């Protein structure tokens, strides 16, 4: 796939978590506007490899906007100028001659592993602390045996669309994980299956979120504006409700 876009890339290079990083500038030529942003990086990395230089490390997996791995902070926006994932961002969103600055997600809770790849296992630990439902083994239940109001099913589904990419943390001035955590809390607390662990979930997930070193929420709404899946900050209000009511009413301290 040959094209006629020529770009200047300013990319954050950092050898490992301990070393100091810096920006490195690359000229990339012959980029097609139909390429995705990651494919543009592939072209650059192929060139670096053929020049026996170290290719740029970045995370990616599905490349179809569902896994949430492709974390790049492009020209001041997580996932770049469009409300989509980096893998779904196309080069036609830029003009030939543009200078594009690419940084890793910046947060104390997301330490840089190498170049643009960051460690997001803090999200895994938040999920492990309470983002689950317990299901007993046995025969599968009849479908639709549990009545769920359509509105709740829709809201839960919209919250479940979160792919855990961390763009909310990257966008937030406080590096807060409220949008992510609240989407997970909402998704389960809205459904009958999530009731058993409901109080424990809200309390434990918030405690884990704080322990991981994410910031508090200033309600700026930057997370919602940048989220590639359009997760609403209504979920944050719901988590606030869940947490506060669990704190005052749970029989046990979690």
């Amino acid at each position, binding site marked *: 796939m040959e094209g006629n876009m020529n770009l200047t890339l*300013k990319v954050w290079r950092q050898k490992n978590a301990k070393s100091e990083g810096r*920006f490195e500038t690359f000229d990339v030529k012959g980029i097609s506007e139909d390429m995705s942003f990651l494919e543009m990086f592939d072209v650059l990395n192929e060139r670096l490899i053929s020049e026996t230089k170290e290719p740029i490390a970045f995370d990616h997996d599905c490349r179809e906007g569902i896994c949430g791995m492709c974390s790049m*902070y492009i*020209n*001041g*926006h997580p996932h770049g100028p469009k409300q989509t994932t980096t893998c779904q961002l196309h080069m036609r969103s830029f003009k030939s001659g543009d200078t594009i*600055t690419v*940084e890793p997600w*910046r*947060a*104390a*809770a997301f330490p840089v592993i190498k170049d643009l790849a960051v460690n997001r296992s803090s999200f895994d630990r938040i999920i492990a602390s309470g983002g689950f439902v317990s299901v007993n083994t046995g025969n599968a239940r009849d479908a639709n045996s549990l009545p769920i109001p359509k509105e709740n099913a829709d809201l839960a589904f919209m919250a479940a669309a979160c792919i855990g990419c961390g763009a909310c943390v990257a*966008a937030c*001035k*406080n*590096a*807060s994980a409220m949008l992510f955590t609240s989407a997970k809390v909402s998704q389960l607390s809205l459904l009958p299956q999530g009731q058993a662990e409901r109080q424990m979930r809200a309390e434990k997930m*918030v*405690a884990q*979120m*704080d322990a991981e*070193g*994410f*910031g*508090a*929420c*200033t*309600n*700026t*709404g*930057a997370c919602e*504006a*940048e989220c590639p899946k359009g997760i609403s*900050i*209504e979920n*944050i*209000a*719901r*988590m*606030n*409700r*869940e*947490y*506060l009511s669990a*704190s*005052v009413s749970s029989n046990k*301290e979690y």
Partner: protein
Amino acid sequence: MSWVTKTLSSSLGKKLIMAVTGLSLIAFLLVHCGINACIFFNDGGETFNHAAEFMGTNWLIRTTEIGLFAGLILHILDGLKLWYDNNAKRPVKYAIVAGNNSTWYSRSMGLLGTLLLIFLVIHLRHFWVVSRFTDVITSGQKTLFQEMAEVFANPVPVVIYVLGCISLAYHLLHGFQSAFQTMGWNHPKYTPFIKSVGAGFAILIPLVFAAMPIAMYLQIIK
């Protein structure tokens, strides 16, 4: 740690303290603005002086005042703590921040709050200290209205007060609706109403406050 301190020291709890103290300060602003707006009767400050005397001597009001100061101090300390903590959550800053994903004032609540604190020190020195800790007013030397007219004859305080009101407007524009979101009150039926009341409050109250020094400086009210 008891469950109360655990809850209140979590990130959500710290925000809850901001919301509750903030809303009580909003309630205070409404009363303060209402009393002071009595100067607009333009009766040489008679109605205003009456109202001010009532506020300064009524035991119920004086008791509430202690709560008000406690709330204010808590709002300031908790706000500074949040500001400091949040700043540390991104040790390496971005080279480029687009900044168009949220309003500038929602991201600047700490800064606006600090400006308000500076204004508040000046403001308390002007009127509260004079009426409570000196006998200028109680001895009948001057009325509070005359004290106001004297302060606002000078353009410097007038400019400071107008700037203070602008900071207040932006602080409220975000703070009012943000407090409800923090308390979990985001609801399709009420949120649009809360947002418009908040915006109206954030514009109207500072506007009425700012009109006072301006009107006195221009001698429209005397």
